[in-house]
């Protein structure tokens, strides 16, 4: 290996905002007053918020310094499993900042917002094509919000059928949002265990599917990075008992152009634009979680829907079976622009190739590291692979120690301790935008850490050593929460 990737250098400390500034400064150019002052009833007036007063340079330095304490995909590899931290193309940011988009009021007359409506309409078509579904709503603001939307649609479907059902089957490999969405929608999640291959068996589903079960919620590819090979049979069983199949499509990055969910028995699914379709994660959001459905579920989609009428686009409200509104307006329009730009830039061949390369990268890492880390399911994976810390247990080195140590090597750690079915899980999702060189460097780093685990376990317990702060005390943070200054 050449020079290691991680090193240290000068950063600047920066106090909390309200420890800066002086009363009377302002970092905002106050508009000229062109009307008379006009006083409001004293009774209604508050004391004014206790904010610091800063100049523009104070603000600029504050956030410039803070930014430098952070690590993003633009800094380096960020192989957080299940999060699809692919590169977010810069041109998408530019498109989303076009003045006609950023400046648009959501309640503009439709005649004055054709650009936005056309884009939304086309984008829904693209997602229909990619998922093989019939219709799509862009209103959900994130993946979990899409899940809730999907559950609400399932609820509305059964209600419309006149049969109220109380349960949803949720496999043990499900993302935490799945059971939470299920119960937020008033259903009871019924757990089901995946088999020794890490996927759902037909039998397990057949055993628990019944007439009181509204459906199943399956992540496919699942959170072990494995394709649910029995999905069609499972869908048949669920359908036979009158249930619906929900697919958590957050992992769609593995199978674009390879699998159409609509063709394999899925009734409703969400996509995470902030994963599969390259929109940046912004340190936690905003995302966008469109929901696509088959034809028989279309009547239940949220309103308004974008509809084309003789070449013009309108927002139509008149869907009596709709679940209603799930966001105040139309969801994360600004995020959708970026995903739309991505699909238009990639085109059909490159979308498929992206999935293929994402799977190639994951399998390559799995193969190269399986001698070093324990690999609980040794089979071809999809877009991510899941290891565990079992081999390191003897040295009392846990997943967390290795994760923290990776920082010193200049990598963001993978997702850790998830999925829950693998104790001490290390879930690596490189995505297709990591080059072979970068992946090789990551593999080298992990191997080096595994050696350190043997030779110098204490160093790992104290890792990271390069970051601006040492390992942080999360326990005390939770025990004595201090959530505001």
């Amino acid at each position, binding site marked *: 290996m050449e020079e290691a990737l991680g090193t240290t250098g000068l950063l600047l400390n920066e106090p909390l905002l309200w420890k800066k500034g002086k009363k*009377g400064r302002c970092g*905002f150019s106050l508009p000229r007053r062109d009307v008379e002052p*006009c006083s409001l009833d004293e009774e209604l007036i508050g004391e004014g918020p206790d904010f610091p007063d800063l100049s523009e340079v104070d603000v600029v330095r504050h956030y410039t310094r803070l930014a430098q304490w952070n690590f993003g995909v633009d800094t380096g590899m960020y192989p957080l499993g299940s999060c699809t931290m692919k590169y977010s193309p810069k041109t998408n940011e530019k498109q989303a900042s076009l003045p006609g988009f950023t400046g648009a009021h959501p309640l503009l007359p439709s005649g004055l917002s054709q650009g936005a409506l056309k884009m939304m309409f086309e984008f829904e078509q693209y997602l229909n094509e990619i998922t093989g579904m019939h219709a799509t709503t862009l209103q959900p603001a994130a993946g*979990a919000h899409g899940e809730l939307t999907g559950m609400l649609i399932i609820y509305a479907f059964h209600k419309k059928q006149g049969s109220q059902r109380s349960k949803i089957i949720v496999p043990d490999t499900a993302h935490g949002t799945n059971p939470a969405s299920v119960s937020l929608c008033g259903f009871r999640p019924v757990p089901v265990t995946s088999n020794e291959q890490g996927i759902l068996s037909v039998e397990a589903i057949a055993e628990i599917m019944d007439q009181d079960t509204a459906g199943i919620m399956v992540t496919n590819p699942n959170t072990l990075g494995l394709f649910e090979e029995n999905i069609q049979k499972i869908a048949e069983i669920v359908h036979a008992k009158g249930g619906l199949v929900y697919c958590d499509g957050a992992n769609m990055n593995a199978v674009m152009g390879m699998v159409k969910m609509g063709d394999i028995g899925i009734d409703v699914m969400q996509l995470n634009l902030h994963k599969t379709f390259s929109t940046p*994660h912004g340190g936690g959001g*905003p995302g966008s979680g469109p929901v696509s459905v088959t034809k028989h579920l279309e009547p239940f989609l949220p309103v308004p829907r974008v509809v084309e009428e003789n070449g013009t686009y309108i927002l139509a409200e008149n869907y009596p079976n709709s679940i209603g509104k799930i966001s105040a307006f139309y969801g994360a329009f600004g995020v959708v622009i970026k995903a739309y730009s991505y699909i238009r830039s990639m085109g059909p061949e490159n979308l498929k190739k992206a999935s293929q390369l994402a799977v190639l990268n994951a399998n390559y890492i799995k193969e190269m590291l399986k001698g070093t880390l324990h690999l609980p399911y040794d089979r071809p994976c999809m877009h991510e692979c899941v290891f565990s810390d079992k081999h390191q247990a003897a040295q009392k080195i846990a997943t967390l120690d290795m994760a923290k140590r990776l920082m010193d090597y200049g990598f963001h750690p993978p997702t850790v301790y998830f999925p829950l079915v693998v104790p001490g899980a290390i879930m690596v999702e490189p995505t297709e935008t990591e080059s072979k060189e970068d992946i090789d460097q990551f593999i080298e780093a992990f191997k080096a850490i595994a050696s350190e685990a043997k030779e110098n376990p204490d160093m790992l317990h104290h890792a*990271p050593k390069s*970051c601006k*702060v040492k390992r942080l005390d*999360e326990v005390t943070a939770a025990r004595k929460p201090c959530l505001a200054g």
Partner: protein
Amino acid sequence: MIYLPHTDEDIFSMLQVLGVDNLDDLFSTLPEDCRFNGDLNLPEALSEWELNDHMSTLSDNMAVSPEYKVFLGAGSYEHFIPESVSYLLGRSEFVTSYTPYQPEMSQGTLQAIYEYQTLAARLLGMEVATASHYDGATALAEALLMAVRITKRKKVAISSLIHPLYRRVVQTYFEPTGYEVVELPYLNNGVTDATGLDEMDDLAAVAIQSPNFFGCIENLQVLGQKAHDKKTLFVASFTEALAYGLLKNPGSQGADIVGGEGQSLGIPRSFGGPALGILASSKKHMRSLPGRLVGKTKDLDGKTGFVLTLATREQHIRREKATSNICTNNSLCALAAAMYLASVGGTGIRKLAQLNHDKAEYLKKELKKAGFTITFDSPTFNEFVVEFPSGFEATHKHLLEKKIIAGLCLAPYYPELANHYLLCVTETRSKNDMDALVREVKSWKKL
């Protein structure tokens, strides 16, 4: 493709390691009948330059300032955003990072969100604010569900002057839960009629928006007292966060939970999203809050740092018993709000809010002078309802051609308010813009 770094040679050597012949063979675990063997029917790839042209054309097809003079508020407000905020918000360390699961590598986001939580809490007069929610409507829905969880009561009352679209989202969230939502009517002066509350003993929450959808300022103090008298939680909502630069905040008037929209605070309208759901509560209820929370802590050396905390409320730990299913939130919008508030400052926000108020009052006065009726006489912030002569719909359309958007027609939301329009004036509308509006509506009135 410039986003795909693999050369053919890379692919070949990686496939060799895997003992596989080609990319397709990587998918051996895909059952044959699950495979889609066709080509996706999507438009061919555009170059960056073609994309620029295409997107500009779409963007040019939108009616926006400064070409259009937009007097629309109703939950989405045009406010000036300093270029410094736009620049800072674009820094890729903020933009391209994930939820800060690994705090040592994410102190920038974490300190910034901790600061946001603090500023949001201070703005609202509350003790704790979450790291953000999707938008005002979902924040309100979650606030009400939270009240249900806390009180274990199964019914909530919400003012009919809460943004109509927010109420619809609340309905959607409540529909499958079996909990009941009742609406409180409004009075002639444009504020909530809370007399019905006296009859309702089993309420988990009463929710009031102030300034309300008509722009009128509600007496939260009195309404809150009414709620508390029945051991009902008082939930405040808002769509125009800037109002609290001037007005008494909900916390000082007894709000237990606040859920509203922060788009006004430095976030572009962007056709309604992404937005910023602000959710705040007293410390007492913090463990019932949905969503992420950033807390202060120390590192091994005793140095201050920040982490995501109280995760046991959340889906990834609690799964079906979580306080909510929320995972991805609207963090970058919260960051924008923090940057904006840091720029405006305590002194500035007061002045800016006053200016909004004074401009709206100017338009109100001029419209009155021109002979139109200001429907509700309660004090307002930067929005108000005006009644135009019947048939104004045509005038409204004509004004569009003159590039004036003369407010929101209320009839679709409140059928009893035919010919009533909700007008909004922020600091971005000049006296000239307002004079032009008045001149135009007057001249059309005469026709």
